């Protein structure tokens, strides 16, 4: 435990900075476990809790400011790329755009607690041309609440976490193998979920060529533009003959759609 405390006090803050930065950049390396452990170690005074929170907020702000700038420069295309590499595609653009349009910049305060929203919210703020200073303030408040919650949880449950750390110290270098295996398993499960989701999606989708053929052959499919208002403002083009419909209005408007024709939905 003495040795672990030494390494934590020497490299702990750098590790937290890199971990939070990589997670906020979109890599599937969860930072909360590290923040919780840092909180537990802060009770034993191996680390300073305010410094841990400060470093986490700083790393988070750097990554988010970068995503904001990319969103501002490349618009909604950044979100599509982000969703392509994300391991949580099911909680991607459409859902997060809706949350952001409903609550605006204050949604950044809780963004880090919502899976998928955390990484997508900053480029989204840039894409809709939100002002940088308010973005930074709300995003910083969100990072403070998120990192503070992680560290506070660690401080509250420090006894249980200390026992876990003592066990890991006891098994020596095998501890690294256990932690590495846990991280690899986490990434594997997320990747498998993503693969299954895309497989389902591929089976259900219609290609542009097939839709064009349906239109040419006079099958007259009903094409629905279900993009959010923000996405439509950013790109006012639409497929000829498409009707506008918000996803949230579908249950209400369902009765008005013809039942004998194929329905095609499209987003950005």
């Amino acid at each position, binding site marked *: 435990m003495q040795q672990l405390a030494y390494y934590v006090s020497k490299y702990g803050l750098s590790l937290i900075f890199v971990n939070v930065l990589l997670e906020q950049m979109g890599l599937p390396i969860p930072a909360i476990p590290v923040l919780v452990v840092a909180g537990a170690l802060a009770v034993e005074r191996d680390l300073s809790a305010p410094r841990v929170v400060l470093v986490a907020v700083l790393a988070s702000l750097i990554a988010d400011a970068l995503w904001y700038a990319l969103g501002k420069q490349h618009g909604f295309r950044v979100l599509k790329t982000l969703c392509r590499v994300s391991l949580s595609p099911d909680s991607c653009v459409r859902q997060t755009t809706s949350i952001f349009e409903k609550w605006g910049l204050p949604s950044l305060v809780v963004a880090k607690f919502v899976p998928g929203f955390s990484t997508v919210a900053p480029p989204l703020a840039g894409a809709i041309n939100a002002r940088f200073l308010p973005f930074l303030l709300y995003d910083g408040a969100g990072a403070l609440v998120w990192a503070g919650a992680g560290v506070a949880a660690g401080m509250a449950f420090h006894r249980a976490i200390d026992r876990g750390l003592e066990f890991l110290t006891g098994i020596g270098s095998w501890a690294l193998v256990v932690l590495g295996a846990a991280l690899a398993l986490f990434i594997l499960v997320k990747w498998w979920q993503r693969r299954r989701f895309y497989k389902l999606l591929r089976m259900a989708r219609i290609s*542009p060529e097939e839709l064009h053929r349906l239109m040419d052959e006079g099958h007259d499919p009903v094409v629905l533009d279900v993009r959010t208002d923000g996405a*439509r403002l950013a790109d006012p083009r639409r497929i000829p003959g498409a009707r506008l419909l918000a996803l949230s209005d579908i249950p209400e408007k369902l009765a008005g759609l013809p039942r004998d024709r194929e329905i095609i939905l*499209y987003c950005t």
Partner: protein
Amino acid sequence: MERGFTLVRPLAGGLDGWVAAGYAVDAEPLIAIRPADT
């Protein structure tokens, strides 16, 4: 996905996929602009 309709399907690639395939799009503004008071 069946909801009492013949078939409901999402378009692969969305609007960008449609444009990339080279098909035409309507480009008129989607939000009605009130004519200026005369």
